[in-house]
């Protein structure tokens, strides 16, 4: 784990993360993010001081059991309401650019 944490934040790492996040960054944003991400992750090493070996991770404040609703039909949004806010539609569906036939 220590070795993972010492991995340097390079422009290549940031470029990879930006691609994972589907977020285009300008060259200037890429440089700034590289620098700021490194600074922040360095600061966040403060928790390495804590002995967390036997601590159970806390994922939510108040553990609640899953609750199922009654299996009855309730009114939802109409087809038209769902499409009303879309940037582009065609034949009652969302219209998007090609999703196949290119390198991911």
């Amino acid at each position, binding site marked *: *784990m220590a070795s*993972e*944490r010492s991995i340097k934040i390079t422009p290549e*790492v*940031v470029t990879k*993360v*930006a*691609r*994972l*996040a*589907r*977020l*285009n*960054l*300008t060259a200037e*944003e890429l440089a700034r*993010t590289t620098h*700021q*991400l490194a*600074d*922040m*992750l360095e*600061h*966040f090493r*403060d*928790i390495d001081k*804590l002995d*967390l070996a036997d*601590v*159970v*991770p*806390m*994922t*939510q*404040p*108040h553990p*609640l059991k*899953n*609750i199922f*609703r009654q299996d009855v039909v309730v009114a939802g*949004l109409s087809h038209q*309401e*769902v499409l*009303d*806010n*879309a*940037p*582009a539609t065609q034949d009652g569906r*969302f219209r*998007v*650019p*090609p*999703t196949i*036939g*290119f390198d*991911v």
Partner: protein
Amino acid sequence: MLRPRKMADFGYHRQSVLMSNEMSNSSFPTVIELVTDIRQGATTASAVLESHLSRIDLRERDIHAFNVVTVEKARETAARIDSDIAAGINCGPLAGVPIALKDNMCTRGVPTTCSSKILEGWKPPYDATVVTRLQQAGAVIVGKTNLDEFAMGSSTENSAFGPTRNPFDTSRVPGGSSGGSAAAVAAGFAAASFGSDTGGSIRQPAALCGVVGVKPTYGLVSRYGLIAFASSLDQIGPFSHSVADAALLLEVIAGHDPLDSTSIPQSAPSLQSALSQGVKGMRIGRIVDLPEGSEPEVLARVDVAFEALKSAGATIVDVTLPSLSFGLTAYYLIAPAEASSNLARYDGVRYGLRVDAEDINAMYGATRGAGFGDEVKRRIMLGTYALSAGYYDAYYGKALKVRRVIADDFARAYSTCDVILSPTSPTVAFPFGSKTNDPLTMYLCDVFTIPSNLSGDAAMSVPFGTGAHGLPVGVQVLAPALGEQPMFRVAAELERAL
């Protein structure tokens, strides 16, 4: 009677207002005063609305509290309430009260932007549960308030539509992220408002703007229709001029909602009844290992608050919270991690901005690159990194363990005290631009407010005099989960002591 007081000429007397320690408590009528006067016929919902709209006319250009003021809708609602009251119909506990909503709560048919270009023009097809409950209670919604984009920030400087200014000193920030909601109440644009608090976004601006602000226990208030930032931390709460108003407002919005799977399955607590109980016999925790870095004037006000509670019959108990300062790291890993996941939905397909490109991946990247501002991009990057293969255990996994340690520390402290007192913010309102160059400096604004979001506990900020430059200071009352009653007892005592 509706007292005219200084409200109509507020804009012309900023200097005298700056001298007053209790500006927001004494300048404008409270929600309870307005409700009483409207119910008794001393004034009307329409007249109350017009007095608020006239203050918006006078000062909104300087303050920029709102993304949109829904004048016509508000006038229609107020007129309907007036005719219902004339007909003898009970219009609810907030009948005729002008209320502002942070612009990250869905309002059917009214643009909801999160102060982001990526949602500009989007009209939600449904109302948030909080909005529905306010409408059923007779509230008159006057508009949607400005925020740091997607509630990420502590100064409202991150809004895509420009910053909100602090009504006490327009060269300074109102705090954030709910800066517009805090400023709207402080400037008398609305009698009360609502914000969301993920790491202090209600309490810190409340402190900086001299109003009351409450972050309820996680799960007490429905998040349905609150646009998600960090779902395990977000909670909606009120801003008001008085502690009693905050109690009433929270009673209206709290209680189980089947539409939010994290909503605690119990009804709203009775809070107004706790206000007059006093603090005799209560144990108030003082954090002996409080993280450093607060302004001395802020700490001095907290000391005065302890003395006031002691004089009223409470006992001061020393508590230690050794993990408190690690909250910042845990928060700035957990919240961005959740945000990077939540904000994946802004993809240019179903709503909001789209920047066209040759294929769908290029369209996603171009849309998100153009639609999100710097701070949102920073947090998406940080969160994506913390969750990515190979780093999950070292960052996100570890942060979740720190979260547990903090919650355990609080639980240990609450075994010896009923509530804990601390500063809300380490400083008073700061000048624009003074913390924007270094994200970590800005993040330190939240050092005292973040821990109760991590633990899921209740906390609120009560205006308690002034600090440096005569600017408002807030004292924070922290309470265990579902400890809203003791929290409000102490808050009410602090208000009486002022």
